[in-house]
């Protein structure tokens, strides 16, 4: 897939400000036992921000859903798979799954399936920076500061600058 940046129709919001907003949405509903699980790679960056902002003690979990994707048959195992790392007992925990963009819901589905292979969590909630709508599965975000409707030919991409600062860009599929 070749994608190239295009000029966005509207100014894209500041991702760092959105992380702060997302943290404030989560804060009132935190349990002492709550742990964050970020989905590679954008979700991990957001989870790290939230971990800092919410001053959580438990280490965050990292999840790479490559082994659980439903498009394996079409795409195979090409992209570099990062090891999933869940450094806590999932059994009975309140988990917040963190991703950058919620779109079709298929990545979330894969992540939930993978988490259940580590144990039976007490609950899983979903926190995302952006919700693009157009779901293909019955999944919705519990915490989300930004809902945006984009043309399906556009890809909303979160990237980390060299300084570590997160920013949005819009790419168009060729």
């Amino acid at each position, binding site marked *: 897939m070749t994608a190239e940046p295009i000029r966005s129709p509207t100014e894209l919001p500041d991702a760092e400000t959105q992380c702060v907003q997302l943290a404030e949405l989560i804060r009132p509903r935190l349990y002492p036992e709550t742990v964050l699980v970020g989905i590679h790679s954008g979700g991990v960056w957001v989870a790290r921000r939230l971990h800092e902002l919410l001053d959580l003690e438990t280490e965050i979990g990292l999840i790479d859903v490559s*082994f659980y994707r439903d498009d394996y048959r079409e795409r*195979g195992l*090409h992209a570099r798979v990062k*090891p999933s790392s869940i450094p806590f007992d999932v059994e009975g925990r309140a988990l917040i799954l963190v991703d950058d963009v919620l779109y079709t819901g298929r990545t979330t589905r894969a992540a939930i399936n993978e988490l259940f292979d580590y144990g039976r969590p007490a609950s899983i909630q979903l926190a995302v920076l952006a919700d693009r709508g157009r779901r293909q599965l019955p999944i919705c975000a519990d915490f989300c500061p930004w809902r945006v409707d984009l043309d399906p030919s556009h890809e909303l991409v979160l990237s980390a600058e060299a300084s570590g600062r997160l920013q949005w860009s819009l790419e168009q599929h060729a």
Partner: protein
Amino acid sequence: MHNPQLNAHGELTHLLSIEGLPRAVIIHILDTASSFLKVSHRDVKKVPLLRGKSVFNVFFENSTRTRTTFEIAAKRLSADVINLDVTRSSTAKGETLLDTVDNLVAMHADMFVVRHASSGAPHLIADHLRRVGRDNVHVVNAGDGRHAHPTQGLLDMYTIRHYKNDFANLVVAIVGDILHSRVARSDIHALTTLGAAEVRAVGPQTLLPSAIEKMGVRVCHDLRTGIRDCDVVIMLRLQNERMNGALLPSAREYFRCYGLTPESLALAKTDAIVMHPGPMNRGVEIDSDVADGPQAVILPQVTFGIAVRMAVMGILAGN
């Protein structure tokens, strides 16, 4: 030149030999394996990648250990695994190799894991599948004759990378019956591709193939010279049947000259690791004090082997 292991897009579709595999493909397999290694540490040691796929272990030559590790790997990918001991069934009744394959394809096999006493048998099967238009069926070579044992080579590379991080400055000694060893050939190709500084083939003249220098290795007939200052020692199993011919005087004599003992291992670097593809012959090629010692990584090799085989099957089935 046509590479029978790659499809039209240059993706790995069969694993037949490490020879001719691009470096990037080897690295991709090793990287993917490290993700699978974590899966085996979980409560549920399975991922759904190969759900609904049928993996046929077709062993024309007996090997319980290799067959079992492939079976575990396939099961951890959620595949259905069918083990066929063809030496005792179809082949014994006179069926040809390719007829056996056609029958299994008719049962909707998705992948063959093949062990055969003849070099080139897995390649023959892959070639046949292409000719009959079954490109969607994948072949993994689980050892063919003296030719190759690519997943063992890959798991050896995984082990070396795990303990040594990088290949660039490594000196690796492969010791023993290199003549009959497909593991040695796979290791040599892999180490050369990954850029190891020096690979040494250590063994008696009778157990080294002629012109092995052409594979880019340094030949040593003396164990002490061979393992001096090396980072990795790969011991090969001395197959008992080799004792009957004129190749070796006796197991005791072999151990005296080429058995790895704490004294000879002391010549290697202090942080050198000792590997062995198993099964070991204690007191023939390796002393128990070494096999059970702190430098041995023989059991981790087994654990890594499952993850590497999961990676190979996971990558093949997706291409």
